[in-house]
């Protein structure tokens, strides 16, 4: 089947749905393609909250400074300015749409403290903020009547004459491939957590959006900047929200000591994420961990605070490690959490590939630079989701729809048939994925060095060769997940490759990139972005882009 729309949004998380809503408001014929029902998108997992300088005594400048300092000065300051200036209006808009944000005594929006922030400026709904925003936005999409192609899995972007003109997607329920043409595509396909093990991310966060855009020719930026969250649950890697520390929880080592006093004497547990994660790894490496974990202690907060403000993580600890936070400290360790880098865009969401926009975790504007502050990512999704929706709707007014693309559809059909017909070789999606992800954690995790990264590159080329022989253990058409998992592993390999090459290139330590062989930040040489561009049949090309500095000159970063 071939379908036409003005604007096609890939992904129905917060970024995708916000983009679709805005494009619809601008009068564009807009549709969404998503591999899971919108409500299942990973945005629902965001617990802690969303930042905005909305309260009295707060200012966008203060929010911007915290963000830029948090980014280790790698964020583009003009983009940060856009985000922080527009944040208050976006939060209030969500309130008007019906989000039941927490209130203070005056009945106005109330806040909680979050890591790396000089003011309490995080707005929240219990510890289900992401879910509350996502459901509200989904309901707005229903109200606006936006067309959603649900459980459609995008396999490739359709590029014609140097412009993105749509995509090909697999309809899971029928097993049919469709060509969806559009004058503009917004890539909002979310993160890539599954490239690492452990990760706080859902099983569906497989980096599809990065790889699709990258293969289509849009460069990726800051890919080496992978955030490890300091408090993920032992075993499963589930996130124990920063909200716990925001409410005053302690991090303890095996000696019962609040070890953050050695690493961030002022902010203690509320130092930025990269700082906390490194401190934990050091504690554990020096023998003060407990089975590879440290402890998150909430006992002194009392049952009331825990049950009212942190009910979800309380429940998770009970369900998945059998511990009651009211009475016991919880074992936690750093786990992969967020990808700061992504498809390079400007502040309207436009990528360097004409007709392709990107927003949300998959995009890199760059507002997070070397390290994202807690509660800034939800903000990123709604501010730049809205902006890309608006910009794409304006762009399509001057563009005629494509009438081609059948060749791309046929090529994809042939590719799927080949994959399905491939004989059993012993290579499965599960094995390849797990090997890849544990390898990435080992060589490209919290601490990195040249030897490890070179090894990672070597292992990656081995995995890629094996991927060419991957077999799909399900031959059905209807709901063939083995097929989509196999495609996802292909996407993840591309993401991993871009991450490792960028990490190897950056010969300094900044933000989430901690090189033991280059332990210092080096502004003279590396105050710049690394871009990586895909080239068919050749090694990818690395290039640089300057960091935009407006009013905040780089300083040493201490908490």
């Amino acid at each position: 089947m071939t379908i036409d729309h003005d604007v096609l949004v890939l992904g129905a998380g917060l970024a995708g749905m916000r983009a679709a809503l805005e494009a619809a408001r601008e009068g564009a014929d807009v549709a969404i393609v998503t591999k899971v029902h919108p409500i299942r998108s990973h945005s629902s997992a965001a617990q802690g909250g969303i930042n905005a300088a909305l309260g009295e005594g707060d200012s966008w400048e203060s929010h911007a400074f915290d963000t830029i300092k948090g980014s280790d000065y790698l964020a583009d300051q003009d983009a940060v300015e856009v985000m922080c200036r527009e944040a208050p209006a976006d939060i209030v808009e969500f309130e008007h749409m019906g989000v039941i944000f927490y209130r203070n005594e005056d009945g106005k929006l109330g806040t909680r403290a979050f890591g790396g922030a000089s003011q309490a400026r995080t707005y929240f709904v219990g510890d289900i903020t992401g879910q509350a925003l996502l459901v509200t936005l989904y309901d707005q999409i229903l109200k606006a009547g936006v067309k959603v192609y649900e459980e459609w899995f995008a396999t490739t972007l359709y590029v014609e004459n140097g412009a993105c003109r749509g995509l090909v997607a697999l309809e899971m329920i029928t097993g049919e491939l469709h060509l969806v043409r559009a004058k503009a595509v917004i890539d909002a396909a979310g993160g890539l957590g599954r490239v690492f093990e452990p990760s706080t991310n859902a099983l569906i966060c497989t980096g599809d959006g990065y790889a699709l855009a990258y293969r289509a020719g849009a460069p990726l930026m800051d890919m080496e900047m992978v955030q490890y969250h300091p408090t993920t649950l032992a075993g499963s890697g589930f996130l124990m929200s920063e909200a716990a520390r925001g409410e005053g929880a302690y991090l303890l080592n095996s000696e019962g000591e609040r070890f953050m006093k050695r690493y961030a004497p002022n902010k203690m547990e509320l130092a930025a994420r990269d700082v906390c994660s490194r401190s934990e790894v050091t504690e554990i490496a020096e023998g003060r961990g407990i089975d590879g974990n440290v402890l998150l202690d909430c006992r002194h907060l009392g049952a009331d605070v825990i049950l009212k403000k942190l009910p979800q993580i309380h429940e998770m600890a009970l369900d998945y490690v059998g511990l009651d936070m009211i009475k016991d400290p919880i074992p936690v360790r750093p786990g992969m959490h967020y990808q700061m880098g992504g498809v390079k865009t400007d502040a309207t969401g436009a990528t360097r590939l004409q007709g392709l926009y990107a927003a949300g975790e998959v995009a890199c504007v760059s507002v997070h630079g070397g390290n994202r502050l807690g509660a800034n990512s939800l903000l990123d999704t709604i501010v730049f989701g809205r902006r890309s929706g608006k910009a794409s709707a304006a762009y399509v007014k001057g563009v005629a729809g494509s009438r081609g693309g059948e060749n791309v559809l046929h090529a994809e059909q042939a590719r799927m048939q080949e994959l399905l017909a491939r004989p059993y070789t012993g290579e499965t999606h599960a094995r390849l994925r797990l090997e890849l992800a544990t390898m990435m954690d080992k060589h490209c995790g919290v601490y990195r060095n040249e030897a490890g990264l070179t090894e990672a590159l070597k292992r990656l080329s081995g995995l890629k060769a094996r991927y060419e022989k991957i077999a799909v253990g399900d031959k059905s058409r209807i709901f063939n997940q083995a097929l989509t998992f196999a495609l996802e592993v292909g996407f993840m390999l591309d993401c991993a490759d871009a991450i490792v090459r960028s990490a190897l290139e950056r010969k300094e330590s900044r933000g989430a990139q901690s090189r033991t062989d280059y332990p210092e930040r080096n502004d003279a040489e590396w105050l710049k972005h690394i871009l990586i561009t895909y080239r068919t049949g050749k090694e990818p090309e690395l290039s640089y882009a300057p960091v935009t500095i407006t009013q905040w000159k780089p300083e040493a970063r201490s908490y």
Partner: protein
Amino acid sequence: MQFTIEVGRYNPEGNYDERAVAGKPYPPPWDKASPRRYQTYTVDLPAHAVVLDALIAIREYQDESLAVRCACRSAICGSCAMWVNGHAHLACKSKLTTFTKDGKTRVEAPPSMPVIRDLVADMTPFWEKHHAVKPWLEAKQPEPPPMEEYRVPNAAMEELIQEVSCISCGACLMDCESFAVNPDFLGPQALAQAYRYAGDPRDAETKERLGAYSGPGGIWDCTHCYECVTQCPKGVAPLEQILKLRRLAVDAGFTNNAGTRHADAFADSVKHSGRLNELTLLPRSVGFFNILDQLKTLPSAFNMIRAGKLPPLIHKSIPGVQRIKNIFARVGGRFK
């Protein structure tokens, strides 16, 4: 620990693959005549593992053809509601040790929904019901200026957290007894969301909503079976929200419907005689002059007579009925 999982399989195409994956053999070819059947797997997992861990282990290392929706693995995304030992649960929140019965755990798609494949149910009825209650805020006018929020007490927001906690997993609807016999019933999840908006002080259409929810398939069609309260993994307790809606609807004057008349007839009868007069309950519920609907109930009335279940023709009061009248007087409200 070893766990035995019995999985309800269904593939409309009926072509399961026989090839060995990762050294382990696939199950024998399917009996194509009966597309749905149970297949047993054994998995080795830690003692605290959940049903979803087992399904993922099967899918990854034993049988790639097993279809199951899941994403977050931590009871947030709502993907993995299915029948576990005959009731709707989230697979990712159901501990294997708790759900092992007679040495095994049985999982299958809920029989109350159409099945697409294996454990993947067609959730269309669920989403249609959600959409049908108009689950969005109709902003109260005047809307505050763009940079100002509605001023509402935190308590009013906190009161709605219970409904907002719904992850749309569908477990409640899958086991709802009223939905099982009446596919048009809006169902527990949708009605809980209905309350979420009707109970929001910022909503302008509370009254219209209550009117719409009082119609056929609405709040009065719930039979109080309590399944939704028991099965909901997030404590949404949809029945409680339905009862809140009923109270609001009656207070708003939406009493001209079978549900309210039934409740009134019930209360009246108990108030006057201390017991239920089943002979007048039915005509009063459907309406005294609604002869057509009354006639429709005749067949079941005859069945009752045949089974000797006819209520006494002369309805007597219980001793001490005055004390019951006093209770009604104390409660007050509509029943004074």
